[in-house]
C-alpha cells in the first residue's frame, strides 16, 4: 500500500476485502458446508447469552404472573373452576365418542407406533439473524444426544429437522425454509408428494398430478419416505390449489405454528421407521383399549 496515494488506499482495501469474501462465497458454493469453524465459534459465543435471555424472560414472566398480575385472580379462579367443570363434562362425552372416530383412531395408532421413539423437549433460544433463512436454535445439543438430520416436532405437527448440532445448542431448519422438505401425503387419498418450504408462511406440495383430486381443507401428513419423520405426523392443511401442467400447485398451511415456537420436541433417532416396526402390529390391535386420552395428545 506504500506506493498508493492515501485517498485511494481505502478503495484498494474495499476491493481487497470484497474479493476475499467473494472467494469465501465461491468456496462454499463448491463444497457443501459441514459446519464451518466461524459458525461454530459465533454460535458458541452467542448461545450462552441467548440461553440467559430466554431464562431471564421466563423468570420475569413467572415473577410477573405469580406475584404482580393477581388483581383479577379470584374472579378468574371462579370462572376457571366453572369452565373446568364444563370441560370435564365435555371431555367425558368426547372420550366416549373417541373410540368410534376414525381420525382419533388413527392418531391413537400413531401414538402407539411412536412409543419406542425416544423424544427430548427443548426450548427455542434464538432464531436466524436474517429474514431470508428460517432457522431456530435450541438449548439442547450434542451432549443431550441431538444429531444432524433428527426430526423436530411439536404436538401440533412437524417443525423441521436438525441441520447442525453443537455441544449445547442445535440449529433447526424450519419447514418453511426454501431449502426444507419433508416426505408427505394427503391424509384422505394417500397421494404422496414431498412438501417443501417457499420462504413464506405457506408450504408447497409440488408433485400432485393434475388428474388427482385434492380438496381444500384436506390434511397433509408425513409419509415416512424421507426416513426422518415417522408416518402420519400432521404436516399441515391444504389452503390453496391452482391447476397446472403436469402438476397442480398446492399450498399447505403448516400444522405447527412456526412463527411462534417456544418449545419443541426432538425425535432422538435417525431411524424412526425402524423403531416403529416392533410395536406397530399390537398397537393397531389394541388401539381402542388405550383410550381417548392418549389420542388427544399427538
Amino acid at each position, binding site marked *: 500500500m506504500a506506493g498508493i496515494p492515501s485517498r485511494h488506499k481505502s478503495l484498494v482495501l474495499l476491493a481487497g*476485502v*470484497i474479493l476475499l469474501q467473494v472467494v469465501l462465497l465461491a468456496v462454499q*458454493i463448491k463444497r457443501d458446508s459441514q459446519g464451518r469453524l466461524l459458525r461454530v465459534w459465533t454460535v458458541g459465543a*452467542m448461545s450462552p447469552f441467548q440461553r440467559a435471555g*430466554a431464562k431471564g424472560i421466563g423468570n420475569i414472566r413467572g415473577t410477573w404472573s405469580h406475584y404482580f398480575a393477581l388483581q383479577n385472580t379470584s374472579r378468574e379462579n371462579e370462572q376457571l373452576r366453572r369452565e373446568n367443570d364444563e370441560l370435564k363434562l365435555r371431555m367425558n362425552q368426547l372420550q366416549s365418542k373417541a373410540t368410534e372416530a376414525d381420525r382419533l383412531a388413527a392418531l391413537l395408532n400413531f401414538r402407539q407406533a411412536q412409543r419406542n421413539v425416544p423424544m427430548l423437549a427443548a426450548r427455542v433460544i434464538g432464531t436466524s439473524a436474517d429474514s431470508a*433463512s428460517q432457522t431456530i436454535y435450541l438449548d439442547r445439543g450434542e451432549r443431550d444426544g441431538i444429531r444432524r438430520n433428527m426430526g423436530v416436532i411439536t404436538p401440533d405437527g412437524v417443525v423441521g429437522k436438525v441441520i447442525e448440532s453443537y455441544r449445547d445448542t442445535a440449529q433447526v431448519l424450519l419447514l418453511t425454509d426454501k*431449502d426444507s422438505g419433508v416426505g408427505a401425503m394427503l391424509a384422505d387419498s394417500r397421494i404422496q408428494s414431498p412438501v417443501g418450504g417457499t420462504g413464506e408462511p405457506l408450504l408447497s406440495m409440488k408433485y400432485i398430478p393434475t388428474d388427482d383430486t385434492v380438496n381444500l381443507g384436506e390434511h397433509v401428513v408425513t409419509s415416512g419416505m424421507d426416513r426422518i419423520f415417522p408416518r402420519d405426523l400432521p404436516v399441515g392443511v391444504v389452503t390453496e390449489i391452482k391447476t397446472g401442467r403436469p402438476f397442480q400447485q398446492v399450498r399447505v398451511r403448516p400444522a405447527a405454528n412456526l412463527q411462534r415456537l417456544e418449545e419443541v420436541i426432538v425425535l432422538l433417532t435417525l431411524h424412526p421407521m425402524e423403531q416403529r416396526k416392533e410395536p406397530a402390529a399390537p398397537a393397531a390391535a389394541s388401539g381402542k383399549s388405550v383410550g381417548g386420552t392418549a389420542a388427544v395428545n399427538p
Partner: protein
Amino acid sequence: MMNDAFDLRLAETHIEVHKFRSGAIVAATFLALILQAFVPVYIPKFAVLDLPLLITIYFGLSRRNPSTGLLLGMVIGLLQDSLSGPTVPLGLYGIAKTIIGYLASSIGARLDTEHPAARLALTMMFFVVHQGFITLTRRLLLAEPEQWFTLRLAIAAAVNAVVAVLLFAVLDRLRRS
C-alpha cells in the same frame, strides 16, 4: 488527540470526527447481533429490523474513516452470516455491509449527517442499497432468483429508517465529548 473530538477539513467544510467510549463499538455490535437473533423468537415482526445494518451505518457516518467503516461492516456482516441459516453463505451479508460501511463513512466525511432528517433519508437509502447488493450477490454468485423490489422492502426501509433516528440519538450518548 484520541480522547477528544476534532475537526477534519474536507471540501471546505468543517466535519467533526467522533470518538467513542472504549468498547462502545464492540458492545453495540454484540448487542445488536444478540437482539437480532433473540427477539424475533418472541416478537416475529422484529425480524423486519436489521440492527447490525443500523450499527454499521451509524458508526460509519460518525467515524468518517472509510477504511474503518468498511472493516467494521465486514466484521458485522460476517458475524450475521454466521448466525444465519444454511441459505445464507458466509460473505453474503459480509459483502453488502462492507460496501455500506464504506459508503456511510465516505458520505459522513462530506455531509452533515447529524440532523434527524438527514439520518432518516440516508438510512432509507442505505437499506435499499444494502438489499440491492444482497439481491445482486444472490443472483450473480448463488444463481438464486431474487426479486429486486418488493412492497416488503419499501416498508422495511421506512421502518428501519424511523428506528435508526431513535437508535442513533441513543448511540450519540456513547460519544466522547
